[in-house]
């Protein structure tokens, strides 16, 4: 069965690039433009993997990621974060919010800094879905 991958990014260019990359590599991409839309899509489409940006209008990737990981039906979906934000900054923000909320949210399956390279992304995706 073709695996469904949800791409959440507010940038049109990134969505087109990822869609092309995924389609031509044997996956079925679905897209969303922000964290809120992303959550709706994740619930509806039940993707095998989510690739998401962090800085987006309306709900950010940080919010969406935590919602996904707190939801019993979605928490097992692996997530790749792709962001212009440095990895260090993201992990630091997670630690701070963890402490604030008093819950430990697991780390994402992978973290890729923008701009994403096609080969790097594919290797990561295949590694996670294997």
């Amino acid at each position, binding site marked *: 069965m073709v695996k469904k991958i949800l791409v959440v990014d507010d940038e049109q*260019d990134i969505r087109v*690039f990822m869609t092309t990359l995924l389609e031509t590599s044997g996956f079925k991409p679905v897209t969303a433009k922000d964290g809120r839309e992303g959550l709706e899509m994740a619930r509806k489409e039940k993707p095998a993997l989510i690739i998401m940006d962090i800085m987006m*209008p309306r709900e950010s990737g940080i919010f969406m990621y935590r919602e996904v990981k707190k939801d019993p039906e979605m928490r097992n979906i692996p997530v790749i974060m792709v962001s*212009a934000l440095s990895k260090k900054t993201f992990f630091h923000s997670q630690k701070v919010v963890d402490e604030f909320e008093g819950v430990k949210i697991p780390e994402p399956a992978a973290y890729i800094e923008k*701009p994403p390279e096609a080969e790097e992304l594919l290797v990561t995706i295949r590694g996670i879905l294997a």
Partner: protein
Amino acid sequence: MINPILLVDDEEGIRKVLGISLADWGYRVLTAASGEEALDIVRKHRPPVVLTDVKMPGMDGIELLQRIKKEMPETEVIMVTGHGDLELAIRSIQFEAVDFITKPINDAALRIALQRARERIWMKEKLREYTQGLEQLVLEKSQRLIETERLAAIGQTVATLAHAIKNIIGGLNGGIFVVEKGMELGSQKYLTQGWAMVKGNVEKIKNLALDLLNYSKEREPEYRRINPNRVASDLHLLMQERARECGINLTVRLDERIKEISLDPDAIHCCLLNLLGNAFDACLDVENSGNPKEVVLSTALIEGGGVEYRVIDSGCGLSEEIKEKIFKAFFSTKGTRGTGLGLMIVQKIVLEHGGEVSVFSEKGKGATFAVRLPAGDIALCGKGRKENSVRCRTWRSPDATKGENNV
């Protein structure tokens, strides 16, 4: 020790006797028989210490003391009097004499007075040295601070620029990838989408470069006499088509009382184009979806014959927090679509015209940008150098890069 000292007494005998003692103690003694003569010597030789009798014909010791302290406050004055007059002593000290001794002069008392004078001179000297040292230190430190701030500003500019460029390169790489897939698989969809990405990102980098150039260039404004309404109606014509495409109702309201003033029409055109572009973007923002899309460009005569342009939109508005930042370099609310330089260029041009830009807005309630230009005759400084004319970015609809695809 060759310390000069001025000895002032109307009695020659005292000048002689006291002079010998002082010379004995190592002073170079100058003498004066009157207050007037003393003042001349003080002006000419600037002795650090003056020893003066109080009772003298003509200018007396107290007056001499006051004049010396007024003209050369660093001079220390010791008062000498024949009477144990407490009132005179108090007055002398009030006028900042260093000490007060009585005749007949007791050597020990005189030495103590001289010692006090020397100490005071030394302390004042030190104080001045320290003060100057401190001032110098403050100057050096502030210069270093300014330098550090300047470097930090450059560093930040470079970092932000690098980030913007990296983003565009990411877009270009993505576009190239999609185009290549299109060629590989013979897919018209990929070719079209990928090509749109490449074009969009080339446009972005072009705008970034033009904005940077416009901002950094030391440009001589080309002032001419023109009716400000003309710039506004030209823009109306230019933007009408775009407005229609974007579903925006663009209206222009001109104040017909406005007469010709001196301004740089290209620059002001660029300013208003930037403001209109922002107004359109604000109307098309997701946060404004479903609301009416109205943009008004108006002109009004202001006191002194100048003009106030207003660009009013019914868009998403600006929060207080954002309002504070909009005129700063590289601040943009438009994500990768904005260069963060537009309003900075607007401000630069308006300031060059001796005018001012202001913004009124509330989150969710639209925004009004006002540009006030004085009628002042700045035409005289116009140099008319063509190579310096403003190159304004081509305005494109914010959705132009999004294409028709539904990804």
